[in-house]
């Protein structure tokens, strides 16, 4: 009895052990993704966090944006080098003299991946869908320059025919705007303005149903250069070339594998072992190593975003402009970008990144500890005496921690004020900022489009993204009333510069640096044109198999 039992146990263990060995080792083939991909024309793309959805009217993130630009196409696209609008589904377009009416002529050879023609009706229907409140589209506001669309989305009017979208015929679409919006064409290749295939969506559910099965592989019908082949959560999204795409001859890749990789260290190591052509980012401390040893694999360029600190102006000691300016002037942002972030970021002295489509605000403060001390003394805190212990809030992340640690020390050293750091998990942090339950909080803002408006309209009174409690009537007037009505670009920029000067004088925020995009690129990947929006036109990319063997390690 005992022996039998024991033999059974031994057998079980032997079997499991053998299974383990077989499973774990297998036979080695040794070819990496880059080599295979270059031979087969498959791009391996590190894509950040796991995409939530592939419905363009539901998603909110950058990873989703990358996948959707491969799967769908709007009326116009952008030239990745200049960011000028280029024809996409619309072959040509006209803008009326007052800048308020756009007429698009759609190309006749544009078809969906199932062969159906892409028509003006598809766009009108898609935009109608994007505005449906039940869908919960967080980026519906991208459509708001269109006349009456905001009122429609908010349920103030329920007749869509009053919204400024008119189908003239199958291949002509007329759009009316509330104001002349100089950046309107730029919005057209944001995913919330992408067309979706009506018949497919209606086959799998109601038009405004969230998360019906139409976005799954096999169901998805798109009009972009690629179609959806595979979607495994936390593993990969695979798209393959769409033979029905109107410009298919120019598409050089046979497919793209989007790898959701949240851990930057893992991503860098995958790149180094030849599993990725392109990474979404790079660990901070690796930048110097690549700069020195493998500069041709490192791609850094300015990115349209600002890293800054919000100040809660509702708190007594922070309601004093002099205190806020003193805090701003005692941050040595040059040292921060050179010694802490180290990725070639530019210290920021304005909120809108310099030269945003020709707009540069006047810099309103500089690093000047002497002056900062004077201001603080004037405000009643000589050498930081009696300055209340103030909390600096950031959301949990290594990068934010490093910057906060450096700035905490600078404030302590130059002003003698006592700052305690507090990190909160992302959702708690969002809650704290929204409810004004903080003193000073880390923040970042990435422009939705290239125009100072995307940076300045957030600081109006009670703006959803303001959060500082600061407001200024003149600022609101400039941004909400005067600038939108001004057609001339220089006039408009002048008004915006005046507004930004008010903002920077009052300093409810402390700009720290302008973002820099940092990624690793395998030399065999060709056709990538860096730009401040990190905008990628996947149909331009190609792979050169002769460079597969480049040494990465």
């Amino acid at each position, binding site marked *: 009895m005992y022996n039998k039992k024991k033999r059974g146990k031994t057998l079980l263990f032997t079997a499991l052990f053998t299974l383990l060995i077989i499973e774990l080792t297998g036979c080695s083939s040794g070819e990496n993704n880059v080599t295979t991909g270059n031979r087969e024309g498959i791009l391996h793309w590190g894509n950040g966090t796991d995409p939530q959805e592939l419905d363009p009217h539901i998603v909110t993130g950058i990873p989703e944006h990358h996948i959707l630009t491969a799967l769908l196409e709007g009326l116009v696209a952008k030239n990745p080098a200049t960011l000028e609008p280029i024809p996409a589904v619309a072959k040509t377009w006209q803008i009326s003299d007052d800048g308020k009416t756009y007429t698009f002529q759609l190309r006749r050879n544009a078809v969906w991946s199932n062969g159906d023609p892409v028509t003006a009706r598809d766009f009108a229907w898609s935009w109608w869908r994007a505005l449906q409140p039940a869908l919960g589209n967080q980026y519906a506001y991208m459509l708001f320059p269109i006349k009456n669309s905001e009122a429609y989305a908010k349920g103030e009017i329920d007749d869509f025919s009053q919204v400024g979208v008119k189908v003239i015929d199958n291949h002509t679409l007329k759009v009316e705007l509330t104001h002349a919006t100089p950046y309107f064409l730029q919005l057209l290749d944001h995913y919330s303005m992408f067309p979706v295939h009506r018949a497919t969506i209606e086959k799998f559910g109601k038009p405004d149903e969230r998360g019906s099965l139409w976005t799954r592989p096999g169901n998805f019908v798109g009009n972009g250069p690629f179609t959806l082949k595979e979607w495994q959560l936390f593993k990969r999204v695979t798209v393959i070339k769409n033979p029905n795409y109107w410009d298919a001859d120019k598409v050089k890749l046979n497919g793209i594998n989007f790898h959701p990789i949240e851990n930057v*260290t893992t991503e860098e190591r995958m790149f180094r072992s030849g599993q990725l052509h392109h990474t979404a980012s790079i*660990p901070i*401390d*690796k930048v*110097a*190593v690549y700069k020195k040893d493998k500069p041709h694999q490192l791609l850094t360029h300015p990115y349209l975003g600002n890293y800054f600190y919000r100040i809660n102006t509702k708190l007594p000691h922070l309601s004093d402009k002099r205190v806020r300016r003193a805090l701003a002037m005692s941050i040595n942002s040059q*040292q921060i970008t050179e*010694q*802490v972030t180290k990725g070639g970021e530019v210290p920021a002295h304005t909120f809108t990144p310099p030269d945003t489509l020709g707009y540069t605000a006047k810099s309103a403060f500089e690093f000047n500890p002497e002056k900062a001390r004077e201001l603080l003394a004037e405000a009643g805190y000589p050498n930081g005496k009696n300055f209340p212990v103030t909390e600096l809030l950031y959301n*949990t992340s*290594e990068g934010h*921690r*490093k910057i*906060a*640690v*450096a700035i*905490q*020390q600078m404030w*302590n050293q130059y002003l003698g004020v006592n700052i*305690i*750091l*507090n*990190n*909160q*998990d992302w959702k*708690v942090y969002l809650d704290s900022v929204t409810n004004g339950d903080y003193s000073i909080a880390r923040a970042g803002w990435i422009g939705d489009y290239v125009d100072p408006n995307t940076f300045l309209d957030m600081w109006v009174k009670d703006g959803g993204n303001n959060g500082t409690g600061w407001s200024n009537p003149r600022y609101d007037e400039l941004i909400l009333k005067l600038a939108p009505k001004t057609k001339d670009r220089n006039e408009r920029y002048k008004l915006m510069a005046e507004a930004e000067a008010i903002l920077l004088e009052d300093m409810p925020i402390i700009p720290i640096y302008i973002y820099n995009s940092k990624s690793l690129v395998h030399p065999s990947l060709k056709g990538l044109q860096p730009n401040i929006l990190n905008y990628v036109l996947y149909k331009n990319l190609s792979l050169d198999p002769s460079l597969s063997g480049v040494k990465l390690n």
Partner: protein
Amino acid sequence: MSEPVAVIYKIEQAEKGTSLWQDAWIRLRKNTMALFGLGVILLLCIIALLTPFIAPYGYEEQNLLLGAVPPSTEHWLGTDIFGRDMLTRIMYGSRVSLMVGFIATGVALIIGVLWGTIAGFAGGRVDAVMMRLVDILYALPFMIFIVLLMVVFGRNILLLFLAIGAVEWLTMARIVRGQVLSLRRQEFIEAAISLGLSRWTIIRRHLIPNTLGPVIVYTTLTIPSVMLLEAFLSFLGLGIQPPQSSWGLLISYGVETMEEYPWLLLFPGLTLSITLFALNFLGDGLRDALDVRSSKD
């Protein structure tokens, strides 16, 4: 020795609580490795206590322009990316880590041992209810619990002990209960029951001393995991805040730059390892010294 005599011997020996511990100390003194372990732990505690007076630099003193440099005569263990002296930071870190390690483990130890012994000894319904409570606590989502703790009570080092204690005693309780269950049926416990000793006396004098072996082993294992758990909780925002440091945090920062600045990982890692080895030798020594049976050899 015939069986009954052995039982009585055991009872007598356990009755005289002091002689058990005196015996143990005598035996521990003969164990050089254990004494060495004890010495290292004491030394670390002394250094931790004296850190504010003997640390070469301030723990928050930065020199951004210096950045991370390898060990030199000025900075014996190098500096981190902010140019802060690593030796100083490890010394200050030991204050947090040792305190968290010992106090939180102590809390877990007391709750776990009592809980497990009572459950195992009482048996029946009491045991079932107590152990199902353990199951419930095992199952609750830890991260949500942490977030709530932080929000309700704010940042507080006491919360850190609470959070760590709340999870670490569970496994201890299970181990002790298992041990007690197997002890309960042994002759000397039955003899003690038939002699009419009170339950509490039996638990205190007979059961707990006899579970000490596995408990000590598990405790030496818990201390390091508690120190590392502290790093995780601090990272989430519950524990200590920069510029303070702890060994766990130093190690987790060091991991990120292990290729570029290996000393940032190496030295805190070594410190933690030395501590653990010392604890381990001490733990083994204690276990052997407290083992009533092996003493009869």
